């Protein structure tokens, strides 16, 4: 059983800590996807929150014949449609109808310049860090994050044991995490001034 299936299984048993781990795992992707659709970060965050709560309530009915994220995304889009259709006093708004009129209705509220700058700065530094990594660590991280390969597949490509892949990826993540911590500290320093 893979990790996500275990988290889902535990959540179905009412384990809120497992569900929180799932929320943390999927929140950015969900909000990112919703924001691409609705172009309004505040609305996307509100919908994502509501979708997670609905997901927790209904997770017993999740049959696992699709990925958890697919199921969650569908809940979120339906939640958004309900919000929008109640505003429009319509029974249903199809996804294709989420057009400029609706965007105007909820208001296009671009992410704040600070938020975009923060994300861009962090991303640039992360990529710089990735480029500077030792080759074997960079390969493992790249194959995992950008090619979506699992540890066993990476091990075959890199001709090394799975345990080594696991360690290399972990080491790469440690280096990336140091970047994030330093940027967070810089931001705190700037805010403190």
């Amino acid at each position: 059983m893979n990790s996500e299936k275990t988290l889902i299984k535990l959540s179905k048993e009412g384990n809120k800590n497992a569900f929180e781990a799932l929320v943390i795992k999927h929140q950015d992707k969900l909000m990112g996807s919703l924001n691409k659709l609705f172009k309004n970060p505040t609305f996307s965050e509100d919908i994502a929150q509501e979708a997670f709560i609905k997901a927790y309530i209904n997770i017993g009915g999740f049959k696992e014949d699709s990925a958890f994220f697919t199921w969650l995304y569908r809940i979120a889009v339906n939640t958004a449609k309900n919000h929008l259709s109640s505003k429009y006093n319509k029974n249903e708004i199809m996804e294709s109808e989420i057009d400029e009129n609706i965007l105007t209705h909820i208001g296009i509220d671009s992410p704040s310049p600070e938020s975009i700058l923060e994300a861009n700065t962090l991303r640039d530094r992360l990529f710089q860090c990735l480029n500077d990594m030792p080759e074997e660590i960079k390969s493992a991280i790249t194959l995992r994050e950008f090619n979506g390969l699992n540890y066993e597949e990476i091990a075959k490509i890199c001709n090394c044991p799975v345990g080594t892949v696991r360690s290399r990826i972990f080491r790469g993540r440690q280096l990336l995490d140091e970047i994030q911590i330093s940027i967070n500290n810089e931001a705190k320093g700037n805010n403190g001034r």
Partner: protein
Amino acid sequence: MEDSIEHRLSALLDGETSEFETRRLVEEINKNPEIKDLWIRMNKTKSLLTAEIDFSPRNIASTVMEELDGSDIKQIKFSKDEKSKQLKYYGFAFGVLLSLGLVFQPFIAQEEESFQSTSVIPALSIGNIPVSSNESYLQEIGNNLKGSLKKIEFMEEGDIIANYVENDSKRSFKLRVLFRDLSLEDRIKLSSSGITVHSLANDKPVVINLSSDEINNQGLVELSNRIFLNLRK
């Protein structure tokens, strides 16, 4: 040597931990704020690298969990218990229908001499019933009645309505099995339709109603008595 928590957290992010490891990590994330922060940062790094986000959204996990903890939100139970309870009810209903088959055979034989000339279909026993197809149960019961199951409907709340037509006489009757207490209004409605018996199944109320435009009430009463005598054996 066992990997560090941070090491295993990285594997969790990639979906590469065993069930045992995952359970332990969930506990660790919950009880250790530093580990939770690391889990959040690891996920954010992943999202940024893979361009899942183009801005820096706030962490909504804490708000979601506060909402779940601070209210009386409960998961909808789709548990096996619920399913097995439903199966028990359906089982009971099929038992009723089966008994009907068992009861009807002599009943029809007495009334209709022509049935005597056809080969007697052995009474069904529950052990012989194929579990895979509910409808085939009912079809077979219809055969046993020397009649045909015309229609079966599974209603809300697990109620079942089955219509039968006797092959030779073409008399039809309707069997309803309701697994709930009825409102006064529903009781009055049912009382004007055939005969109704209120009983219990697994300590839960069950109502059986037999109605027919072609079989008189006395016939239906006799039939229902026999059903219950059979059920109580």
